[in-house]
């Protein structure tokens, strides 16, 4: 599976130009964090990958499919997209049915849909809640449930929009584990986030966007070292990088061990 975004421009019907020529190539197994200010075009770009939006110019292809030639419902089998607010999708009366909603729509057999849903709930730590009403979960659990609802679709590409918002330490750890598991399965994981510490801990590649364009695109450590560029996207470097900079160390460490190793002995 690979995604190709080729010089994509997009203008909303109202006339707002949200993307001004974005080109990216994404290979199977890559994990990429998209950062940048609200309105920089991150969500607009992600919506191009499953066909919710079709490019005004340029081309988006998911393997051999040009997104303009396929409906969202069809593209959903290849690209799973978790929206920011769980309340925008809840239709079923139990957590398990809610998670199975996508798999059933994609035409998975009932047995597969249920098995995939059970497995997805296990991953997000909600196995005990499968018979619970979604609205009887806490807001942070509802968010985890929506992650499960896309995991269960077993798509080769998974997109998360701000998955860590409102999560505590346990939730962060769970979501981190999910990302690692998806990476192990060689799926493409894309995330939109403001949580720079989370993105530096789990993502190999970072794309910073501003004003409908790609500002920087590169390995995480390289991007994190560019405090000047990050500042223009309303993002501060991760705590470890800031500490290293304040100590005058010549590295941009992404892990605690990395910083310790760089300390003068």
């Amino acid at each position, binding site marked *: 599976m690979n995604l190709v975004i080729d010089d994509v421009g997009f203008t909303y019907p109202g006339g707002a130009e949200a993307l001004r020529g974005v080109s990216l190539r994404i290979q199977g197994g890559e994990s990429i964090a998209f950062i940048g200010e609200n309105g920089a075009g991150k969500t607009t770009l992600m919506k191009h990958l499953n066909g919710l939006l079709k490019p005004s110019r340029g081309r988006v292809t998911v393997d051999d499919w040009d997104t303009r030639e396929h409906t969202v*419902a069809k593209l959903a089998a290849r690209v799973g997209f978790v929206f920011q607010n769980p309340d925008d999708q*809840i239709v079923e009366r139990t957590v398990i049915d809610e998670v199975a909603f996508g798999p059933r729509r994609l035409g998975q057999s009932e047995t597969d849909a249920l098995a995939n849903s059970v497995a997805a709930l296990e991953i997000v730590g909600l196995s005990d809640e499968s018979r619970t009403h979604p609205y009887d979960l806490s807001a942070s659990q509802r968010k985890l449930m929506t992650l499960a609802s896309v995991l269960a679709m077993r798509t080769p590409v998974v997109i998360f929009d701000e998955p860590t918002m409102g999560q505590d330490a346990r939730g962060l750890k769970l979501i981190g584990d999910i990302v690692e598991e998806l990476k192990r399965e060689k799926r493409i994981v894309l995330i939109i986030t403001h949580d720079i510490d989370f993105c530096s801990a789990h993502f190999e590649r970072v794309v910073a966007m501003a004003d409908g364009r790609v500002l920087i695109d590169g390995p995480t450590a390289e991007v994190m070292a560019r405090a000047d560029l990050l500042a223009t996207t309303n993002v501060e470097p991760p705590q470890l990088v800031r500490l290293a900079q304040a100590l005058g160390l010549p590295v941009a460490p992404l892990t605690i061990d990395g910083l310790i190793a760089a300390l003068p002995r």
Partner: protein
Amino acid sequence: MSQSFSLYIPTNSGMHRLHPLTKLALVFLCLVLGLFLPGVWLSYATFALIIIPSALWGGVLPRLLSALFKTALPIALSLFLIQGLFWPGGTPILHLGPLSFKEEGLYFSIQRTGRFIMIIGSFLLLTFTTRPDELMLALNRHGIPNSITYIILSTMQIIPRFQAKANTILDAQRSRGLETEGNVLVRIRALLPLIQPLLLGSIVDIDERAIALEVRAFGRKGPRTSLLTLHDTPAQRIARWLMLLAAVAVIAWGIYLWLAPRFIA
């Protein structure tokens, strides 16, 4: 997308500067004229003599005419076709193959179209030239309870938010493979996954919205002040009374015309 659900056009004409109640009285008079004037042509005459000059003064005439045209055209067409062609026992004046336009039906259609454009035209005049919050403040000062004006104003502002939310819900469900395009049955089936999150999600939010109101002392009894100020003049006050008197006179005349033949007979 506009910020509130209203076609108010913010310019600074003399019409705009009138006290909201003056405009409301004018609209009331227009409604009465539209509904109670006898004959076929009088409503067109009052439309030309009151609504058009007022709209011109307010700088909203082109917008008013185009909005009016869009609303009234389907009704007028339907009226002329249905009541013109199928008026039982009418006098045929124009033959169209097996069908014919009846004189009574045409008269009836002209009259009702006139009535309809008076009603719609006067609403549009009010909407285009009156800030909704000023109108509500004026009504509030004249005995309409605070709760009603709160409901009307906040509804006007949450509708655009709900429209956006409905679009997001649609996107979220399509991303999970929900098919929304196709035959009537497919589209009807797509309705519940759209309606339910919209309704449930907003009911869940009701708690917070109610608390936010209480925090701002909305539940406090007793008098209130208002930062918004309304400008009134003695001339406008007199004009309002005159318009009300005129409206009452027209109603009385209309009732007399309706009753007189019955009593004389």
